[in-house]
Structures are given as C-alpha cells and as structure tokens.
C-alpha cells in the first residue's frame, strides 16, 4: 500500500522535472556467487529449479548455468531427485506432491565449489491454498495515465496469510518477471472479505492493451512471509534509484545457505478466469 503510493504520488512528481542521459561508468567485478531460483508450486508447470552463477554486471545475455549438480528435495512425505533437463535447469519428477503444512528441504551438491562451498541447502513450508471466489478486470482511465486493475473477491482466513498474484491473458503471461508480480500480506484486511480489493495494476503506458473478449487468468498463490519480504525487497532494489525513497542498494538475503542468492519456496496456486467486457 505504502509502496504503491510512494511511487505514484511522489516519484511521479519528481519525473515532471527529471531527464535522463546515458553515461560511461566503469564497474569492478566482485566474487562469483551461486544463484538458486527455486520458485516451485504445486502445479505441473512450476517445477523447475534454476541454478546459475553471477557474472560481471555489464556481461550481456544469460548468466552462466551451473551444470552437473546433484539436486534433491526431502520432506515428511518423500524424497525426490531432480534431473537436469537443460544446462542449469533441474526438474522435479512427476510424482512430486506438495502437502500443506509440510516442510521441504532443498539440497544442492555442486561439482565444483562456488563461493567457497559445494553444498547448499534451504527449507520452506507449504501453505494451505487460497479459496478465491472470483476475479474481475476493470479499466481505470485516471490512475497512472490509464491502467487495468484486477479486483479480487475472497474470504481472507483469520490467521495471517501472504499472497502472490500473477496474471495471464489468453494463456500468455502478463507478469513474466519478478518486478511485475504482486506479493503482499493480509495485515491491513486480515479476516475480512476482500470485496474487489485491487491486487494488481497493469499499466497502459508499459504497452499493455487488453481487448474486449480477452480471457484473463489470475493465479493466487499462498506464500510464506519470508518470500513476501524477499519479493518486496527485490522489487524495491530493482526499482529506479532515487535519493528520496531508495534504501541503500544491497543484496536481498534469501533462504539459501552460505549466502547464495535466490530463494526456495513451494506454494499452492489456484486460478480464476474472467473475460474482459
């Protein structure tokens, strides 16, 4: 809530004056770190763990994949070994099941040490899925020079919950990168019926155009508090820097051991469809 207002109210004002210009800037190269992106869901399409390394900042393209690692997930209900399907991409087997309330441990054994270690590990806890009644898409010509907003209808449970929202149009992702996701906790409406709460804005001036008759899908995930904070801080660090709001630039601490970058989470997802009228 505060974040949204900060950006819209104040940063918007600054941009009335601001101009930008490309500059030359030399950067040093820091030590290589391991990067683990293990954002897994209980759905069949959310089962890939990406393992990469950091690269010099100005390096172009993808960062180097970490190949040949031994990756497994262990829980009360079983143990699964992931297989490397592409360089640095490790897939869970089809028989993987995630059960609400269970803890899952990710174990990574590298062939060669990165950042001084060969073994990395992380733990997450699967949350119960959300029950979303419906979603709706509305166009608001006033907000942010014209925006679409997703309204969300569900009964928020009494205990504290954290949500992750992603959106798709006609099967294509509208939120294909972390900074476009919407992750929030229910602190301000805990236990209430959400009654059309706006959970995501899509900005026309960022090239998003939705036509009448388009089918939209909203994915509601229930995530851990730690992952909500992780996404929030990442979004803050990825936003343009300015002296008024930006905290000191810093790496966002995840839940992987030995200071590896990234996060391990397994969360349940439910989907709701709506047709834009």
């Amino acid at each position, binding site marked *: 809530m505060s974040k949204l207002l900060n950006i819209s109210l104040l940063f918007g004002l600054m941009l009335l004056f601001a101009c930008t210009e490309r500059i030359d800037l030399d950067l040093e190269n820091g030590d290589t770190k391991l990067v683990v992106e293990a954002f897994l869901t209980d759905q069949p399409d959310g089962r890939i763990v990406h393992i990469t390394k950091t690269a010099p900042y100005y390096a172009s393209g993808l960062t180097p994949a970490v190949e040949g690692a031994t990756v497994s997930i262990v829980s009360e209900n079983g143990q699964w070994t992931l297989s490397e399907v592409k360089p640095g991409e490790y897939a869970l087997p089809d028989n993987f099941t995630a059960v609400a309330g269970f803890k899952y441990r990710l174990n990574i054994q590298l062939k060669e040490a990165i950042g001084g270690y060969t073994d990395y590990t992380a733990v997450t806890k699967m949350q119960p899925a959300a029950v979303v009644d419906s979603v709706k898409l509305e166009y608001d010509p006033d907000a942010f020079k014209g925006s679409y907003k997703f309204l969300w209808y569900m009964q928020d449970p009494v205990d504290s919950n954290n949500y992750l929202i992603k959106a798709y149009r006609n099967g294509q992702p509208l939120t294909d990168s972390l*900074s476009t996701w919407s992750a929030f906790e229910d602190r301000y409406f805990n236990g209430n019926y959400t009654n059309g709460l706006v959970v995501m804005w899509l900005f026309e001036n960022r090239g998003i155009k939705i036509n009448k008759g388009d089918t939209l899908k909203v994915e509601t995930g229930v995530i851990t508090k730690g992952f909500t904070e992780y996404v929030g801080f990442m979004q803050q660090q990825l936003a343009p820097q300015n002296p008024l709001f930006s905290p000191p630039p810093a790496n966002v601490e995840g839940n992987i051991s030995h200071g590896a970058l990234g996060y391990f989470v397994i969360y349940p997802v439910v989907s709701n469809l709506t047709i834009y009228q």
Partner: protein
Amino acid sequence: MRKDQLRKVVERSWRSTFGFILLMILIIGVEGRVLAADLPGSEGANSGAIRYAVKGYISDALTGEMLIGATVYVDEIQSGATSNVYGFYSLSLPEGTYTVRYTFVGYTTVVKKITLSGGLNLNVAMEPSATQLGTVEIKGEEIVQDVKRAEMSVVKMDIKQVRTIPALMGEVDIIKALQLLPGVQVAAEGTNGFSVRGGGLDQNLILLDEATVYNASHFMGFFSVFNNDAIKDVQIYKGDIPASSGGRLSSLVDVRMKDGNLKKFSATGGIGTISSRLTIEGPILKDRTSFILSGRRTYADIFLPLSSDKSVRDNTLYFYDLNAKVQHEINEHNRIFVSGYFGRDVFENKFANMNFGNQTFTTRWNHLFSDKLFSNFTGIISKYDYSIGTPDGKANSFLWESSMKDYSFKGDFSWFPHPENTVRFGVSTVWHEFNPGYVRGTGESTVFKELRLPLAHALESAIYASHEVQFLGRFNLKYGLRLSVFQNVGKSTVYQYDNKYEVADSSVYGSGDFYKTFMRLEPRLALTYSLTESSSVKASYSRTSQYLQLAQNSTAGTPLDVWFSSSPNVKPQMADQVAVGYFRNFSSSEYEFSAEAYYKWMSNTLDFKDNADIFFNKYLESELRVGKSWSYGFELLLRRNSGKLTGWVGYTFSVARRQIDEINEGVAYKAPYDKPHNITVVASYAFSPRYQFSANWVYSTGAPVTFPTGRAIIGNEVVPVYTARNEYRMPDYHRLDVSFIIKRKQHPNMKWDWEWNFSIYNLYGRKNAWSIGFVEEEDNPGVTYAEKTYLFGMVPSVTFNFKF
C-alpha cells in the same frame, strides 16, 4: 492521555523539575561565590566598589525591531557586551563617567557619554547607515566577526544578504543559504536536507522562535518552511553548541521571527514564479505593542489545468505558510511575545491524496528580576503531521495518519555581574507524543481494517549552566554543563529481541509508568586567546546527546517522517567534538577570515540493516543496527560584509565514516554525506544603488554511492549484485546561479518601493546526476548501460518584490 497517566506524569515531572531547580540554586550559589571572590576583575570581596548596571534594549530606529548581537563597548574599560536575542544588554560598572559605543553592521554607530551614580536604563535606537543594500558603509570599529568571544563554529546569516542569493525558482530560502557555508553538505540536489560536519540529516536541531521544526521542507524538500519576509535572524552552530540547547548531535539552527514594526504600518510582498508572499506589520500601541502577519502560497496548481496531459490537469498541488507574531511591552521589566507558524503541503488527485505540515506556537515572557538578571520563560507547542489516503467509496479506500507533537516549557536566565563575566543557566522540559502510524479503511466499501502502531510518550528534560569569563586581558573562557534526562513513559509494550533480532519476550508498562530513564552529562567548553585586537585562536570541546531520531534509510528522505526515541532497546546517540580555529578580521573589519579544524566521534550511531522494513513496523527497533561513526575535516571561510562587492568564499575538506558490525560486513564505510572537497563562492556586486548582480558557484566531490559488481538472473530480471556499501562516487557536482536585481529609483516622499529580481539557477546547464541507474538497451535486451537522472537544466525565474 488518560487522567491517571496525566497525574503521574505531572507528579513525576514536578519532582524532577523541582530537583533541577534545587541543583540549579546550588550551582548558582557556587558560581556566585566564585564570581565574588576569585575571578579577575571582580571587585566584590577586595575593593568594595559598588557596581551599577547600564542596561536596555538596542533597536532599529525606523522599525523598532530589536537588534540581535549588537555590540556595546565601553572605551574606558576596553570591554563590553553584546545584545541578546531579545536585543537586551546589561553592563555592570563602578561609579564614574563612561563613553559607550553601540555598533551593529549596517547601522550608524551611536556614542553615549554617561555618568553613572546609580542604575541606568539606556535604550538605544540605531539608524540604518544606508537603506540601499550592498552600499552599506562600514566603519573601522564595527566588529563583524567577534574574534574575541569564546564562541566558534557559528555563522550568523545576514537576512538581507540571503535575499540577494540567486534561488531555485526565485524562492529565497535561508536553509539553502546555510547549505552554502563550509561544513554544511546538501543531502541531494535541490533538497533542504543537510548534513553538518558528517552528521545525519536528523541531527540538526532547527528552531523557529525556540519551537522545534521537525520537517523544515515543503514539496519534497525543494523549498524550506521559512518565509524570508518573516525572519529576522538566523544562526547556525556547527559545533560548540551553547549549553542552553541540546537534543541533537550535530548542529543548531536558530531562526528568529521578526517582532513586527513598532513605529508604523508597513507591508512587504512579492509575486514570484511559483508563489506569492505578503507580510503586514505595524504597531497596535505605538512603541509598545506590534504585530506581524506573513503568508505565502504557491500557485503551481493554478497552471496545472493548462496542461495538455489529463493526468497532470487533475492534480491539486500547493503549499502555504502563515507566520504570525505579537509583542507587547508591559513595562520596562516585562515583555511578552506570542508567535506561531502554520504550514501545509497539499497534493490531491482522483486517485490519491497527501498532505503534511508543521505547526508551532510559542509564548514568551521576558522578565528582568534585576538590572543584571535577565530571564525568559517560554511555553511551546510544536507539531508535525501527515496523512496519505485514497478517495472513499472503493474497496481500497484508506487513510493513513501519523504525527509528532511536543509540549515544552523553558526557563532561561542570564546574569551580568560584571562586563567580563556572564552566567547563563536554565531548565527545560519537553513532553513528546509520538503517533507513528494509524491506518484505517474509509467509506463503506473498504476492506481495510483499523490498525494503529502504539502511541509512545517521553519526557525530555535538561538543566544547564554556563559561565563566560575574560581573564588576563587576552583570554576568554566559556565553560558549561548540561544535564539532560530522557524518560520513556507508558503505557507501552517493549519487546526484547534475541541475537537474531527476533522477538523473544515483551514487557508491558502501565499508563504513566516511567519505565526507562537515561541521564547524560554534556560538558561544553570554549577558549579564546586574542592574538591582537582583530585576531584570535580558539579551541572548543562539546559533548551532545540525542534521544530522538528519524526512521529513514534513503539519502534525502520524504515527508513521511517517523521519529522514534531512545528506549530500552535504543541507547541515546552521543557525540564528542573538538575544534580549533584561527579567526581574523582585516582591512578595518571589511574582511573576516576563519579557519577551523574539527574531529567528531559519535557513539551508538544508528543505521538500518540492509533491506529494512521501516514502514508501519511495530518491531522497527529490530531493524536497527548500532555502531560508531566519526568525522574530521577543516573549513576555510573568507567573508566580505561591506562595500560594493560582498559575499564569501568557502572551502571544506571533510571525511565521514560509519562502522556498524552487521552492515558492510563490519567494515567502515563512507557516510552518505561524505564529500571530501567542497567549494562555495557567493558574491554580490552593487553597480549602483539601483542595480545589483549576484552569483554563486558551488562545487563538491560526488556523493558516495553503491554500484553493482555483478549480475544475477532471478525471476526473469537482471538483478544487480553488490559487494560493499558506498564504494563508488557520483560524478562531481558543480553549478552556477546568477541573479540581477533592479530597484526603483529612490526619491524622497515616495510612498512605495519595488524591485525586480531575475535569476537563473544552473546557468551553464550542468546535468548534475541526481541518481544513477542501469537500463537495458532497447534493441539489445540483456545489455545494460548506466544512465544518470538529473533534475534541473537551466531554470530561470522572475520575482517582483514590493514594500510600502
């Protein structure tokens, strides 16, 4: 506050205040005996000569406005005094005949021959020596910089000079003028935030008529809350803070409002590029009671509807200020002043709204207990608050409010037993009320609940005494002691955190419980040795403590301020500063030069951990990390206060570091305002009484900044990877501003006066980096380059000022 809480607080405060007064009497008793018996020049015990006081007020003959810091010099004893912030002076002399000179920059010296055979009340009205600015003639004996006083690291700004400094969008701004002084660093382009000698932005105590101004900014910090037309005097203490003030580590900015014209009605005002101002003042009872009312409002919003962009057109955006003051002289021994400030920033559109502002209210009573004992009692209410919200009627409708409120009482005494001895002492107490955040849904459709961060209360009290004494002809010593006491008052829940900063336990305190008390002794010391009549060397030491701080982790800050206090989890910040300096006036005081070097150690320095959650966080204290910081440097300042060309040149070398175990892996890092080299040139040239040209040029090393040393790909984003904090620097900053003032041709009997002020900010259009970011090339995704954002190119503005 509940009744029982109030009762407990009153009882406790009364007990502590009473204790203070007792201690005070003790100190005064000791001081008194010391003065009577031991101090050089004191005839008390050994000569028996009776001293009589010459005392009075020094004022401007045309307006009756009291003059602060005017010099009173007695030829026969080659010593004297200066008028205090109320224009009062007192000199105790043995029976005899004396020549007394009253001098003040820009005023004709007044010489009085007096024969003293009893107490003498001598109010002096001084004539301005020339009404035209920039053509002020200075006489040899007019001492601009008091090289002899035991006081250093202080700069007094001439309000008239501030008006000639070219200003952003023509808005004359005393805070921006202070930022042009050596030792004062700007937080970010265009903003009012400043760092003094390596300190934090929240380590500056900004007082308006003694009331704390918690956020001295309008409009994201581009303009200050001080309307120059209503201001009489401003001084900044960069160190050697007087014992009478405390509560902030790094500086004191003491702003005094005008008292109002006692002689005749007058109005001044201006129509500027973004705002208009109007000040009216005049006598209610001639020579005894006066008022001043001063207002300013921006009108940028009036032009918004002209925009072709609908989203700009629908915005409401303005700020305003109102200053009001009344003074009344009851009799020779009693004067009262009531003053207030009210300012607000408003921003609204169909989607959201935000407003914030300061309010201060000060009531003062000057009382003379005797010709030698001057006192002032002050009652203050000071408030800063803000709210942000969205319009009603939606599921997302909400309102968020936060405020900070102080109720203070102060009693300050000055005792003038001898021209070479001055004793100052006093007590103060402040009741703080913090409302860190209150958020709730509004309207019927809202889904938001009501949430409140707990209110907090604290009592901050102090007692102080200081003694300024001249001895052996050339030495001037000022020593003082301030005892400050800070107490957290319930009701409150205090959390205990484990070594991972997770909540381990909590303690609940009842309403009115004083659950934590901090007590700090703050010695202050300054010594001056006069080398010649016009040069001296000075040294000072001061210790300051700070119990309130701002929850902020960006470099320049926003209006969404949350102040939090020392508590069982947060120890008070402390600073020790030593400074030495050389001071010289030359060419008959036309020029003044100062060189100062300082070293400052600060303990319990607070910073937030990386990626701290400082918004609406009940466990804010768990986000803090504690360490130490230090800064050192030197400052050179050459000023010319008279003649056709006036202004100053300043150079600062400074270093500021912080070291906190859990930040930057415990390695010391550059403080955000560490800019080693800083040059300012401020010059104003009066071609004739009608035309004046001014320019200022600033240069500083780029601010420290953190840049990535690697990249990772996470969530389909190129994520910067960092190694160490503040290891890089922004490009160097420099800028030239100019202004040209055209005044009305002066002739006798003219009813009103006017001037045009044309100014250009950033004349050569330097694109100073406000921030540096990294962007992906459009036709080359995955290829990143650095891009700077700059705020201002060349900004011209016009202001028309009038007076009648």
